[in-house]
């Protein structure tokens, strides 16, 4: 029993154990929920819900929201679950710590919070925009789509890394 608890408190597991675990989790989501794992659609739905709350019901007339109706569904609950699961995982291994600037960023670009946040927001906007353009993110395409051997998902996953490696190399030369 104590070994199980020790394992749960361990802050880092082998990437192969984690990967295999995500693979098995995918079996379960296909079987019991008829859904693949995917995260970014929930962000678009939340954006739609917020826009609707701020700008009123005319937002629902937008073509994108007609085709992807904002609302709370399986995928939205999945994201809430990711937060709680990651929080419990970090908490029991004593990893929870509030931090504005990651140390690797600080070493290269300084400790200024606003510089880090400006880059993070610009990056986040590109991530959100690009995920909707490509119709999936590192979960929906990078894991769920590739495991189904979908051509568009393999192409997308390759482009995620081409873009990401390119910008990372420019940033941390």
């Amino acid at each position, binding site marked *: 029993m104590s070994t199980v608890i020790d394992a749960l408190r361990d*802050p880092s*597991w082998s*990437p*192969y154990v*984690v*990967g295999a675990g*995500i*693979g*098995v989790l*995918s079996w379960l989501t*296909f*079987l*019991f929920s*008829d*859904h693949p794992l995917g*995260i970014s659609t929930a*962000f*678009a739905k939340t*954006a*739609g819900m917020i826009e609707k709350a701020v700008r009123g019901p005319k937002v629902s007339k937008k*073509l994108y929201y007609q085709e992807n109706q904002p609302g709370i569904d399986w*995928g939205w609950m*999945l994201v*809430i*679950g*990711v*937060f*709680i699961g*990651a*929080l419990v*995982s*970090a908490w029991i291994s004593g990893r929870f710590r*509030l931090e504005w600037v990651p140390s690797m*960023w600080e070493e290269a670009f300084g400790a200024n919070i606003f510089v880090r946040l400006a*880059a*993070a*927001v*610009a*990056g*986040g*906007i*590109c*991530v959100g*925009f*690009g995920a*909707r*353009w*490509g119709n999936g993110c590192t*979960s929906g395409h990078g*894991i769920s789509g*590739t495991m189904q*051997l*979908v*051509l568009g998902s393999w192409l*997308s996953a390759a*482009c*995620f890394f081409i*873009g*990401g490696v390119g910008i990372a190399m420019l940033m*941390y030369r």
Partner: protein
Amino acid sequence: MIDALHNNKRLQLMLGLLFGFCFGFLLQKGRVCDYEVIMRQLLLRDFTVLKVMLSAIVTGMAGVYAMREAGWIKLHKKAGSLGANIPGPLIFGIGFGLLGYCPGTSVGAVAHGALDALVGGIAGIMIGAGLYAAVYPKLKEHVLNIGDFGDKTLIDVFAVRNPWAVILPVAAIIVLVLLVLEKMGL
């Protein structure tokens, strides 16, 4: 019986939460919600992220296709095109590098206290998604349909009758890549 389960909306929301819990727990244990782990992957210095993804793909693929062959599940293949699956993901990739998290790992990073993931990740990604909704009609009309290839899989591309004729070689290549990474000490 499984259809009744799929159609039980309230139960499905609970299952979504439960599956999400497991996903988030695993992502955090894999350290792939850490800025440094993700950036070191993009700098090709540490392959933790790729190891997690590739082992998830091999494991998932075997089970998902076995269940599909047994008639237990149906696949969920997204249709694609060159106009959708190249420019969008490249923009995503640039954002991935600037932000240092993807959508799922942003959520996971906030959960260990990363506030840059909250402001940049969660808020930024929603702003980006909202902006996309504004330009969507134009892109749909002019760009997304360029080079449309539908929901083709690699099995269709190689035009084989038995899906395992593609699944097994793909699995073998992934295992080989992982072995090489280990051998190189990455």
